[in-house]
């Protein structure tokens, strides 16, 4: 059981990283981004592209320390993040912004992001096909923790990166001027405008953060399991649940929500088949919606 909880923390930290971007965008624009999961997939696959390239030209090939992956994977984070941020900003500009300008209900944005999700997934299928891919073949070094828990060294990397990234975003939002403005925007967009804050410009920053987190989450997930085109979409229900559990716009909430869901999902495998994990997320989400819709850290919002 303890082992399951530990695995849950690993899974949960990946969910948390991705959820942070989702809740940030939801808090500011009121739109639930259904493409978020597939953006994770894109991030993971762009990294894969570079990893494969590196191996073709035989650079960055040595394994990183005690982990299973090569330096190429680490370096590939950078182009993956850049691409993901660019993609997010374009998606906002071409699809979501026109809908905002038209003054329609955020549900239209929600449906539009579903369209984007299909497009992204279609692209992945077309360029890489439906097979599984891996960042690294071969051995996966393990370490042994007390209580007989076996953990892959990679998983320590994952948790560490996830926490570091989450902490970085949190500190940014708390201390940096731009970060505070994002919080203000999420809190009260009208008042932010009235204060002179240019909402559209700030949104670009928000997408920058979301795009970065989502790419990181995608790569981490690829390291943890494998890459396949459906990976992000399957994750989406967990992301939704984490964000709803944590409360709209709350970073800490997304972090807590992610961890809770990761643990719940892994623990559920003691009784249910692993394919039920999304269903577990969903049930938790429904319970939250029925009994405490604002989530743990959420505020009253329309």
């Amino acid at each position: 059981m303890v082992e399951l909880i530990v695995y849950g923390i690993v899974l949960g930290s990946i969910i948390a990283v991705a959820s942070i971007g989702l809740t940030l965008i939801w808090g500011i624009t009121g739109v639930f981004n259904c493409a978020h999961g597939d953006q994770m997939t894109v991030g993971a696959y762009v990294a894969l592209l570079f990893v494969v390239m590196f191996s073709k030209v035989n650079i960055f090939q040595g394994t990183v320390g005690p982990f299973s992956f090569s330096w190429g994977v680490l370096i590939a984070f950078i182009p993956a993040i850049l691409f993901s941020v660019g993609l997010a900003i374009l998606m906002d500009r071409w699809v979501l912004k026109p809908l905002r300008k038209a003054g329609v209900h955020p549900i239209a944005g929600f449906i539009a992001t579903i369209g984007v999700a299909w497009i992204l997934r279609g692209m992945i299928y077309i360029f890489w096909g439906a097979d599984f891919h891996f960042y690294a073949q071969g051995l996966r070094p393990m370490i042994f923790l007390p209580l007989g828990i076996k953990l892959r060294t990679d998983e320590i990397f994952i948790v560490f990166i996830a926490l570091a990234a989450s902490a970085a975003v949190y500190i940014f939002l708390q201390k940096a001027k731009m970060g505070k403005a994002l919080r203000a925007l999420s809190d009260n967009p009208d008042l932010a405008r009235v204060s002179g804050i240019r909402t559209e410009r700030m949104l670009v920053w928000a997408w920058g953060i979301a795009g970065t987190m989502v790419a990181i989450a995608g790569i981490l997930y690829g390291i943890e399991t494998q890459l396949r085109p459906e990976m992000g979409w399957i994750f989406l229900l967990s992301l939704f649940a984490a964000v709803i559990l944590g409360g709209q716009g709350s970073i800490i909430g997304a972090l807590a929500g992610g961890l809770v869901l990761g643990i719940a999902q892994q623990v559920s495998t003691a009784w249910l088949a692993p394919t039920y994990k999304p269903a577990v997320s969903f049930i938790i989400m429904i319970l939250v919606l029925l009994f405490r819709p604002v989530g743990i850290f959420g505020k009253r919002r329309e």
Partner: protein
Amino acid sequence: MGTAIGGILSFLISFAVMASIYAIFTMGLNVHWGHTGLINFGVAGFFCVGAYTSALVTSPMPTGVLAQYIKQAFGFNAPFLVGVLAAGIICAALAVLIGMLTLRLSEGYLAISTIGIAETIRIFFNNERWLANGPQGLIGLPQPLHGLVPPAYYNYVYLVIVLIFLAIIYIALEKGIRSPWGRVLRAIREDEIMSGANGKNVFYFKLQSLALGAFIMGVGGALYAHFSAAIQPSAFEPLFGTFIIWAMVTLGGTGNNKGAIAGAFVVWALWSWSTFIILKIVPPAFQTRAPYIRYLLIGFLLIFILLKKPKGLISEERQVSKF
């Protein structure tokens, strides 16, 4: 030449059957969204339950050797119409259950919940082998009036059957919309508060609308099951089971049944014909990946429709004046 035309004709008939089945779904969704304003992203769930209910009700329980390969919870070997009716009823009941749980939620949450419900249903059918044979699904489903014509022409017969259902549903719905009941639903869609009905009544109306739409979707699912004669859970994933139908309704005009049917035919045409064309143009090396171009198609279509007529999907913004 004869076979070429025969081939095209056969393709067209299959196309028409699926398009008509999807048209039935769009009308069901129109009851939910077009007429009552309920965002149901879980159509795939009703699709799945409808199909499986009819399949199980109309199949015999496997015996002997077969029982080792095919696991079912029950099988009544009942006639086709009983299967279809059962599908509708079970879906309606399911809808009521879901409604009791989720109607209190605001729209966005309702939408997300319905996605989760549909996925859970699909996962359930996939995992619980005892229910309906898990991932392998059920095969050899009975087809009504099978012996009437040579097998090559069976689809013509089925098309007629589906069109009859489509016509009945269309007429019934058009009558329903013009009735007082229909007017209440539309008033609820426009603005709950102003419709004059008190909270409790609104709830019951929504529940009724959910049940009716789900009944129709259940019928659609049953018709699908007996058309393809084999079903498995993977057929009911969100793209084919829910969002393609949303694209159809959005294109055809929300709340407009004629438009919904037209939307179904247009989108299904795009979908099935594009596969056909793609497989012709794309070099063999990429044949396995070519079908995924349809993902792009549906994605762009959805976005295109939304951007072109954003007010069309979400007609009136609820105006709240601040004094």
